[in-house]
């Protein structure tokens, strides 16, 4: 298949039927692309614009700002984040701020921890041959990957009881441990493929230069595996930031994360659409920005995984 311009030149004179067919194909392709882009973007657009609407605009289904409704900071004012309230004191902003901070600390903390543990294990599994009782490398890898199938409901209650005994209930550290375990298999999966794609000769050259096993790993291999690490980090971040189940069961006041806050607001009666919309917008904004600017790292990191 070729693009519009190059396609039209050679076929124009000879095969009008083929040309019509080709143009039809193009129209279908772009039609499908635009349709799905609309499907992906409209809910996000709707949420962002709704946070600037008043009640009348919501009920009458107004969609386009300035054309059929006058944007107002209504939703953001209720969060204490509009221009006129941002410098005043606001309890709702304080609450939102603490939830936001909890989300950032737990998701970044868990992603970093999972990346460290996972990269080390993945490098070991990619370069050395282990024997642990009857388990060889493939079995050990399967052991790690099999953690992925554990449904959160299996672990939720044991953790509730254990965390009570450990005084870790409603703490960020407790959530970080749990989130690390949920993303560790994915990190190991991506990082092992990443390390496998780095030629082993590089390690050997490093040994010749007098570096130790760990020296070769830290100085030579790690800098080369940044794309995979970026992909693993972003994916972990997405999963941890959006996690709801454990956070809902294991936190109550101090360590509540954003999804729990969003969920508790939808549950209450007579919700204000504009404030819900503002809250949802604020909750998804960080990852939307990450998605827009770091998308290529996700794709390139996963490509090494799928290409094998």
């Amino acid at each position, binding site marked *: *298949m*070729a*693009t519009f311009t190059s396609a039209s030149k050679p076929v124009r004179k000879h095969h009008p039927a083929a040309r019509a067919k080709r143009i039809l194909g193009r129209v279908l*392709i*772009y039609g*499908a*692309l635009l349709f799905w*882009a609309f*499907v*992906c*973007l409209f*809910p*996000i657009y*709707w949420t962002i614009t*709704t946070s600037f609407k008043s009640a009348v605009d919501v009920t009458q*289904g107004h969609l386009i700002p300035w054309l059929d409704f006058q944007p107002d900071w209504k939703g953001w004012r209720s969060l204490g984040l509009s221009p006129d309230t941002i410098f005043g004191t606001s309890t709702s902003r304080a609450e939102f701020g603490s939830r936001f901070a909890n989300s950032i600390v737990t998701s970044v903390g868990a992603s970093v921890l999972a990346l460290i543990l996972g990269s*080390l*294990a993945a*490098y*070991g*599994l990619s370069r*050395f*041959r*282990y*024997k*642990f009782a009857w388990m060889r490398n493939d079995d050990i890898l399967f052991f*790690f990957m099999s953690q992925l199938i*554990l*449904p*959160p*409901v*299996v672990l939720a*209650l*044991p*953790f509730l009881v*254990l965390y009570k*005994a450990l005084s870790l209930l409603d703490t960020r550290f407790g959530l970080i*441990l749990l989130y*690390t*375990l949920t993303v*560790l298999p994915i990190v190991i999966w991506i990082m092992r493929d990443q390390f496998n794609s780095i030629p082993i000769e590089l390690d050997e050259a490093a040994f010749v230069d007098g570096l130790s*096993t760990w020296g070769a790993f830290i100085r030579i291999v790690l800098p080369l595996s940044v794309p995979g690490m970026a992909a693993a980090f972003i994916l972990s971040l997405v999963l941890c930031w*959006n996690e*709801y*189940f454990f956070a809902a*069961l294991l936190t109550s006041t101090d360590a509540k994360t954003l*999804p*729990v806050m*969003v969920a508790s607001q*939808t549950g209450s009666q007579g919700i204000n659409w504009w404030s819900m919309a503002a809250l*949802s917008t604020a*909750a*998804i904004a960080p*990852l*939307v920005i990450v*998605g827009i600017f770091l998308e290529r790292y996700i*794709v390139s990191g*996963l490509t090494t995984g*799928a*290409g094998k």
Partner: protein
Amino acid sequence: MQNSSLATDAGHHKPASPRVAGSRKNVGRAVVILASLAFLVLLLIQILYTTGATTSGFADWRPILAAYLFWAVAIGVGQVVIRGERGLRALFLLPAVFFTVAVVIFPTLFGIYIASLDWNLSSLEGPRFYGFNNLIGLFHDTYYWNALGNMIFYTAAVLGEYAVAFGLALLLNAEIRARKFFRVVFLLPMMLSPVAVSWMIGKSLMEYRFGPAATLARYLGWENPAFFASPWMAWLSIQAMDAWVSIPFIMIILLAGLQAMPKEVQEAAKVDGANGWQAFWHVTFPIMLPVSITVLIIRIIFKLKLADIVINVTAGGPGGATDTVSSFIYRVYRDRSNVGYGTGLAIFYLLLIIALLTILLRLSNRWTQKVE
């Protein structure tokens, strides 16, 4: 573990350093044994204290956690001292192993213990041993079997998600303009929190009175666009939301597979006179089969954990039509505080998942071998 079971074989590229001297080995063994003893003694003290046998102990179990960490470090040091180069190599794997044992294996075993208790947090009696009664009770729980039945439909819907995702991946892999723009846009739903999506789509876009989706449905001739009133419509709405969030993941892995595919293969198919559909069905699809199976299995694993959207939009209703096993157990915990029974349900579900995935993996192995 300290006895020798974790042995690193000589790697493929660097001979392990010569045998470590005997005295050094003894020092290493002493470190490991001392640390293990200290850990066991602390554990014993705390167990006796908690059960009320002795009066001295710690207020909570945190010191045991610290002792476990300390013990793990001692094992690592011991490995290096005893084994030298091989120990250094084992050090790559040990942190992840210790972590997984502490936060997955131990809690799961503990969960099996909880599942054998009759334990309701709201009753004053506290836990008591219940044997297999939770398991027996589960077979008479129609809500649980209803949720399991729903999971079959949810899992089957993965095939539909896969078909859409494959189509999108093919579109993105075609010669199009603004490819980067479309790729970013198509990926965005994956980034969004299912809880936020529950509100954004489930509670506002699909709102009965003035949600845009309801307005559109009325315009298209559906007079009474209640997305969550009739059982199958509610199921479809929940499934649509989940698909919206998860299709990008399938799509991006398939796209990566398509881009790794050699271009010559498709050109050869064109030379042979295959049309687009034939080229796809006889060339692209078989080559993509291994990637497809991998992504399908991962997606099914995630689908079996589906809970957030159901909990927040319908809470399982109407009449349990949208219930998933996870959302049902969540309600058993939250509303009925029935800890023992809920965990029993969860453990039984885990066993079903393990059985299902074992069969799936076997089948997929056989199938891919047949195709190749």
